[in-house]
C-alpha cells in the first residue's frame, strides 16, 4: 500500500477539525474525497502534503504512512524533500496559484532543478517536454509568458506540469477544477486520470462534484463535518450507498429524464466546527435518524462490498458484522 492513513485527527488551536479518518491508497488508484465545504477535505490534503503548519494546524492523532514512513512524525526538512518530489500538490485555484511576477518557465523548472538535480538547460528541456505532453501548444513561448497572459485552464495545466516535474508517486489535487469553466473542467479531469493511469501514480482527488467522482475515481471516501461517513469502491457507492449522507449526495446529481424542479438539495447546513452536534454529526439533517443517533458516535463498520460506513441505521443493511 502506497498510502495508509490511520485514525488521522487534525486540529487548529483547541478545535479538532478532522477526527479519526482512515483510508488506504495503492499505486495506480484514484480516490475521490468528497463532502461539503467545511467537511475537512482540504485539511486532509494539507495533512498529506505536510503543509498544515501554514494554516496553523497540526496532526493531533493517528498516522499517515507513505511508502513505509509516517508523514505525521517526519521532520520538516525531510517532509520538504518529499514535497514536490514524491508527493505533489495541486492547489485549489489556478488563477492565484502562480507567482504573478515570475515567468512560467522558471516556476516549473524549479521542481526538477531542486528535486532531480537538473541544471538550468536540462530543467527547461524537461519543462517543455512536460508542457507538450499536457497538450500545451508552443511550450517554449509559454515558458517566457507571465501567468496573467494565460487562461485558467492553461494555468491549471502549468500547475499539473509542476506536480509531474518531480516524478511523484502521489498527487493530491484539491478541487483542481472548481475555478474553471465546465468544458475545461472535463478536459482537466480527463488529463489527470490519463496521467495517473499511464504513469501508475496514485491520486487523491478532492472534489464536491459527484459527477467527477463517478467519471474519474476508483474509490471514494465521503467526509461529513470532519468525520468519515462512508468509503468504498465508486461503483458500490453509486449502486448501494449505505450512509444516508452519501445517498443524499448522490440524489443531488441531476439525471436525465428528471421532472423539472425535482432536483433536491440536502436540507440544513454543515454544522460549524465550534458547535458540532453530539452523537452522529449528520443526525439533525438525517431522514433516518432514530434512537441513539443524537448521543452515540457511530463507529466504522465493515461492509460486504469492501467498504466501511459509520451509521447506526444504514440504508441497505449490507453490514458484514
Amino acid at each position, binding site marked *: 500500500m502506497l498510502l495508509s492513513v490511520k485514525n488521522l485527527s487534525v486540529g487548529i488551536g483547541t478545535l479538532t477539525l478532522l477526527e479519526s479518518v482512515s483510508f488506504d491508497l495503492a499505486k495506480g488508484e484514484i480516490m475521490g474525497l468528497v463532502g461539503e465545504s467545511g467537511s475537512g477535505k482540504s485539511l486532509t490534503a494539507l495533512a498529506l502534503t505536510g503543509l498544515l503548519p501554514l494554516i496553523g494546524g497540526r496532526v493531533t492523532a493517528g498516522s499517515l504512512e507513505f511508502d513505509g514512513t509516517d508523514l505525521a512524525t517526519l521532520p520538516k526538512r525531510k517532509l520538504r524533500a518529499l514535497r514536490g518530489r514524491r508527493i*505533489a500538490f495541486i*492547489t485549489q485555484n489556478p488563477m492565484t496559484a502562480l*507567482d504573478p*511576477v515570475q515567468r512560467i518557465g522558471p516556476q516549473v523548472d*524549479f521542481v526538477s532543478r*531542486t528535486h532531480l538535480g537538473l541544471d538550468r538547460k536540462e530543467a527547461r528541456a524537461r519543462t517543455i517536454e512536460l508542457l507538450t505532453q499536457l497538450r500545451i501548444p508552443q511550450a517554449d513561448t509559454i515558458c517566457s509568458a507571465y501567468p*496573467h497572459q494565460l487562461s485558467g485552464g492553461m494555468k491549471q495545466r502549468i500547475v499539473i506540469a509542476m506536480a509531474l516535474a518531480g516524478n511523484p508517486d502521489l498527487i493530491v489535487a484539491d478541487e483542481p477544477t472548481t475555478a474553471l469553466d465546465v468544458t475545461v473542467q472535463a478536459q482537466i479531469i480527463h488529463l489527470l486520470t490519463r496521467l495517473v493511469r499511464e504513469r501508475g501514480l496514485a491520486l487523491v482527488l478532492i472534489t464536491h462534484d459527484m459527477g467527477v467522482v463517478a467519471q474519474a475515481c476508483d474509490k471514494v471516501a465521503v467526509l461529513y463535518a470532519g468525520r468519515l461517513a462512508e468509503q468504498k469502491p465508486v461503483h458500490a457507492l453509486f449502486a448501494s450507498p449505505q450512509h444516508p449522507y452519501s445517498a443524499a449526495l448522490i440524489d443531488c446529481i441531476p439525471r436525465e429524464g428528471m421532472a423539472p424542479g425535482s432536483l433536491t438539495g440536502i436540507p440544513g447546513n454543515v454544522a460549524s466546527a465550534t458547535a458540532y452536534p453530539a452523537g452522529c454529526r449528520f443526525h439533525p439533517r438525517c431522514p433516518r435518524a432514530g434512537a441513539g443517533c443524537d448521543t452515540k458516535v457511530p463507529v466504522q463498520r465493515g461492509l460486504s462490498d469492501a467498504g466501511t460506513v459509520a451509521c447506526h441505521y444504514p440504508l441497505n443493511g449490507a453490514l458484514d458484522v
Partner: protein
Amino acid sequence: MLGYFIRRVLVLIPVSLAVSMVIFSIIHLIPGDPIDNLLKIGAGPEQREIMTARYGLDKPLAVQYWIWLSGVLQGDLGTAIVARRPVADLIAQALPHSLALGLCALAFSTFFGIVLGTIAALNRDRWPDQLIMTVVLLGSTVPGFWLGLLLILVFSVWLGMFPVSGARDWSAMVLPVLTVGLGGTALVARVTRVAMVEAGQRDFLMLLHAKGMRPARIQLRHVLRHALIPVVTILSLRIGWILGGAVTVEVVFARPGLGTLLIKSLNQHDYPVVQACLLILAMAVMLGTLAGDLIQAAMDPRVRAAL
C-alpha cells in the same frame, strides 16, 4: 512601453509650466522686495524707482513672467538680483552638494529601511519586530532639524567624531546623511514590513511550499520581491522630497547646498534664484515619480501589460 515613456515625458512640460506660474505668483505675494537689500540706508524714493526699473520689477507680473520664461526656455536662468551673479552659476555650485547628500541619504534609507522592515516582518509580533517598530515610530516623528542638532551635540560636540558643519570632506557628510536618512529609513521600514506581511498572505505561496521550496527562499525571493513593489512607490516619492526635504538639514549643518541657497535667497527676496531653486525641486519630484513608475513597470509584468 516606449510610447508610455514618451507620453509621460511630454506631460512634464505643461506640469512644469503650471508649477513655474504658481511659484512665480507666490514669491511675489511675499511682502518686501529685493530692492530693499540693494539700497543704501537713507536712499530716496527716486533711487528706488531707478533700481526697480533696472530689474524690470515695475512691469506687470504677467510681463515679468513672460520675460523670465522666455529666458529659461533659451537656457538662461537670469542673474541674481542681490547676489549679482548668474543664477546658473549659483545653482551649479549648490546642486552637487545637495545631490550628494540626497543620494547618500536615499541609498542609506533604502538599504536599512528594507533590511529592518524585512527583519520585523519575518519576526512579526515577536521582540525584534516590536523593537524595530518602536525605534521606527520614534524615527519617523522626530523632525529632521532637531535630530540634526541632537546628532551634532552628541557626535561633534561631546564625542568630537565629526565636524559640526560645512562640507569639507566625507566626514562632514556623515551626520547630515544620518539626519536625512533616518527619517526615510523609518518610513521605508514601515512600508516594507506592512508590504511583506501583506505579500505573505498571497495564495501562490502555498504552491511554492508544495513544490518543496525552502521557507527562507520563499520569503526572500518571492514575498520580498512582491513587497518591494509598493516600497519603490514610496521611494520614488522620496527622491524629490529628499532634495527638498533636506533644506532645513542643510541649514542646520551649514552645507552650501540648494536648501541653504534657497533659504538665503528667500530672505533676500532674490526672485530669480528662488524661482530656479523651486523649479529644480519641483522637477526632481516629477522625475522621481516618473522613475518610480518606470521601475514599477519593470518589476511587475501586470503593470507593464496595463500601460
